[in-house]
């Protein structure tokens, strides 16, 4: 069993190959560079370095979002096409869950991974380990970081925040939560593709054709169209 994991949903570009109980190869960069140019060469190089060919792969796991719409689509398109043409299962995992899975394992509390979503907003969710397994406490969503932090003060346990965009929201979070908020260290801020691979390894494959990214939000034009039509209906 050789699982290929692909994460291009945010600035971090991550590719990993795992065997049943071993990370064979992992490639991570965190630079503002074009994913479209770099993902396939990265996959090719990693497979080659691990002495594998595409036909050795038995499963594809992809970060399904939230994140950059274009970024998520690049990873999902490659993952869908590879899974379809190699006739192997495809599994999608939340881009936020990847971050939470890595840091939450030894943390006695909940984990709030986050990506900046502009204008004070963040993509986030709430995750927690239970008997060695990660569980979703609050599903992935988009909201003001201030509102989110306020909401979390109702919890009677510490919350660990993780993600490369922490600096943008840290102050706001501390203001609301004080000591209840904890922050992951620099080396843990990039989503680990090997974590993604393990999260997807034992999950059931999805119907490849129907697999779509989790954008969280509708396209802007669609939202406006719905608003306009609701206004028309209520007139």
């Amino acid at each position, binding site marked *: 069993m050789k699982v290929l994991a692909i994460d291009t949903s945010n600035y971090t570009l991550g590719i990993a190959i795992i065997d049943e109980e071993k990370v064979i190869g992992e490639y991570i960069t965190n630079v503002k560079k074009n994913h*479209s140019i*770099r993902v396939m*060469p990265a996959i090719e190089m990693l497979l080659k370095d691990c002495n594998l060919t*595409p036909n050795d792969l038995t499963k594809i796991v992809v970060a399904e979002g939230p994140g950059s*719409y274009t970024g998520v*689509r690049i990873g999902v*398109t490659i993952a869908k096409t590879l899974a379809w043409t190699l006739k192997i299962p495809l599994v999608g995992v939340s881009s936020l869950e990847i971050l939470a899975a890595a840091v939450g394992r030894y943390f006695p509390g909940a984990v709030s991974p986050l990506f900046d979503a502009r204008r004070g907003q963040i993509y986030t969710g709430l995750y927690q380990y239970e008997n060695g397994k990660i569980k979703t406490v609050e599903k992935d969503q988009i909201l003001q970081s201030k509102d989110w932090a306020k909401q979390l003060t109702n919890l009677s346990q510490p919350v660990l925040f993780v993600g490369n965009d922490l600096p943008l929201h840290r102050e706001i979070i501390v203001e609301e939560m004080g000591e209840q908020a904890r922050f992951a260290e620099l080396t843990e801020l990039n989503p680990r593709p090997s974590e993604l691979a393990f999260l997807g390894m034992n999950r059931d494959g999805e119907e490849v054709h129907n697999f779509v990214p989790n954008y969280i939000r509708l*396209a802007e*034009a669609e939202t406006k169209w719905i608003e306009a039509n609701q206004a028309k209906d209520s007139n």
Partner: protein
Amino acid sequence: MGEFIMEKDQYILGIETSCDETAVAIIKNGREIVANVVASQIESHKRFGGVVPEIASRHHVEQLTIVLEEAMSQAKLEFKDIDGIAVTEGPGLVGALLIGVNAAKALSFAHQIPLVPVHHIAGHIYANRLVTEMKFPLLSLVVSGGHTELVYMKEHGHFEVIGETRDDAAGEAYDKVARTLNMPYPGGPHIDRLAQVGEPSINLPRAWLEEGSYDFSFSGLKSAVINTVHNAEQRGETIKPEDLAASFQESVIDVLVTKTLKATEEYKVNQVLLAGGVAANKGLRNRLEEAFGESNVELVIPPLSLCTDNAAMIAAAGSIFFEKGQRAGLNLNANPGLDITIHNQ
């Protein structure tokens, strides 16, 4: 023991996602369609009055593997039979192009099949090769929602843009005028239909530009149409929409046909190929057929299904570029502003 040198058939798989059609096709030996699948998103974009890039990209992700599977099963082929994967590199909507380009790269990598990048307009021109063999030198009149160009080709894979629009594409002018006349998107076919029953009785400008230029300009004409409608409204007069459509269409076609004829003579070409979505326009087809009826220059107009965006045309062009050894690596990117002369090698 006798040895047979068997000419193996060449199969090229084409992928096109530059705008609002998700398309995959397979072409045998450059000219024979063995599969041609197009999933159109037009119904989805209609309510917005035009193509919304983000929504187009989302649809491409939903459709592409389905369309791929349909094409492979139509062709009854497996990937080991495919010699090259041709994909539209540009121009087009960047987010939309990215889906086709990345799917093509994944296929190329999974099966170690050469990747051949294709310019979208080169594709439109090569749609003609699915109708009849190209006879060089030739001239192609490319008219679509995003393009109005005269392209001269002295041989396969050589493209020289001798004229292009300086502002709006002809198709864009059609859509804008259609909006002025309160017609639904896309407006081109509606105007064409109206024009068939109207009289070109309204005087509208024709932009010939400077002597000897093969360039086009349609923004002045578009403004003239809008002004005509507004002025009539202010005077309380009514203009028959069919007459306005006919007058507008005649102005567009006059310029297109006259410049094409002139270029045909100057460049001494053997063939004139019509290409692009506006090639579906009846008025344009009729006028070109009239103009070239007596001439010994062959006029080729592909059937409607090959004029609008499709992947058969991308595979047809890809077949030639494949033979010429043009290849892309796995670092191929979408290029929304791609120049057609990339193929001149």
